[in-house]
């Protein structure tokens, strides 16, 4: 089964690769004339439309624009620095409120799982977004293996702690290392929530969270923790890295919500990466456009309070 997050997107709506590859030339030609005319007549800008098609972001952009603070605060530098990360072999520990705690070898785990495509919009809390074709499997399939107890109400994820390869884990006090994230159990078992092991049909690049990362498409990107080594099922809501560092700025839920501004910037719109100069920003959607699937999870919650 291929999960499509937006049933309305059909194959023919995807931009022709040929046109796409020439987009920069086209835009540059456009830009020159547009700039000339725009100074006089602002009406030439059609800034009101929201492009809700899932047009895949060029892989090169996705591979060179990552927030991976363990390596660098620079989104491009982490591409190179992350290559030092040893990822083979890779083991994942699953423990806590479960019937069968396990220590799994990733390679063996992948043999049991059916890897599928998931094309998701990825919205960063920094107000940019990209559309990435991930390959992975539903987190719920992994959780089923360990048989969660009824007392398991939250899931906590932990990134690898390896200061030799991840230098900022020793020197940077920006976050409490290792990086941690968490979900409520109903969020973790939601069919949209996946563990990704690949993107663009290739194995996951190290800077993008290899070998195993979480993807929760209706939440801000920092929830989608990279290089996972530990998954714990817990009774109580866990502390998570960004929430601990700045609870008023980064909530535990971190659902994409244009109506709730970050204390320092608006979340109302986002820059779609790969879009050209003079393209209007995209209007951010509640739950990043996945409201139809996930809004029910929060029906009794005040989304302004539970950020």
């Amino acid at each position, binding site marked *: 089964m291929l999960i499509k997050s937006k049933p309305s997107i059909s194959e023919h709506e995807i931009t022709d690769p040929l046109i796409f590859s020439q987009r920069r030339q086209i835009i540059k030609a456009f830009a020159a004339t547009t700039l000339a005319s725009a100074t006089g007549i602002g009406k030439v800008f059609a800034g*009101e439309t929201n492009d809700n098609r899932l047009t895949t972001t060029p892989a090169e952009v996705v591979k060179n624009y990552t927030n991976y603070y363990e390596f660098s605060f620079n989104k*491009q530098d982490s591409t190179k620095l992350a290559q030092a990360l040893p990822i083979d072999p890779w083991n994942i520990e699953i423990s806590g409120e479960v019937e069968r705690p396990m220590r799994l070898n990733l390679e063996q785990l992948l043999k049991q799982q059916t890897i599928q495509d998931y094309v998701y919009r990825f919205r960063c809390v920094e107000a*940019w977004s990209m559309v990435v074709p991930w390959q992975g499997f539903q987190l719920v399939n992994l959780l089923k293996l360990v048989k969660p107890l009824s007392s398991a109400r939250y899931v906590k994820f932990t990134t690898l702690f390896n200061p030799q390869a991840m230098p900022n884990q020793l020197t940077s006090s920006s976050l409490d290392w290792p990086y941690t994230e968490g979900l409520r159990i109903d969020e973790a078992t939601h069919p949209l929530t996946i563990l990704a092991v690949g993107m663009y049909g290739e194995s996951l690049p190290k800077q993008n969270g290899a070998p195993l990362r979480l993807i929760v498409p209706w939440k801000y990107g920092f929830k989608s923790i990279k290089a996972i080594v530990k998954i714990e099922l817990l009774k109580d809501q866990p502390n998570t890295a960004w929430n601990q560092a700045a609870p008023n700025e980064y909530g535990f839920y971190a659902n994409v919500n244009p109506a709730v501004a970050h204390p320092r910037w*608006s*979340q109302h*719109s986002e820059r779609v990466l790969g879009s050209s100069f003079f393209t209007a920003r995209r*209007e951010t959607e509640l739950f990043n456009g996945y409201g139809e699937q996930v809004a029910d999870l929060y029906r009794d919650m005040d989304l302004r309070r539970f950020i």
Partner: protein
Amino acid sequence: MLSKSTIALIACCLPLLFLGVDIATDDLGGNPIQTLHIRVGDWSLRFLCLTLAITPIQAISKWRGMANYRQLFGLCSFAYASLHLLVYLLVDNSLNWRLIWIDLLESPYIWFGVLGFSLSIFSIKKPKSST
């Protein structure tokens, strides 16, 4: 031979030239609009610092060699700030005034930019020969 002031003017435009090259060669990274926006803003601040430093340097060191360029640097700071604003309005927001208005209301950091730019408009004066 070019006069000193012409050379200074050309030097002030070099950041634009480099920016042009980076745009033409698609070398502004994964978020080129933001990079462009930040780069012209940074240059405005650099020229502002330079402009504001000239008088104190003169007072401390008695060296007056920079006095003739103070006005040029000040105008450059304003020019780059104007570009910064134009990039925000046109390149990033495509003159979508509704989005721009919401962004303005919800983003405190932009208030400083608005304040700074407004102040710089008032600080533009007619040329005055330095004595």
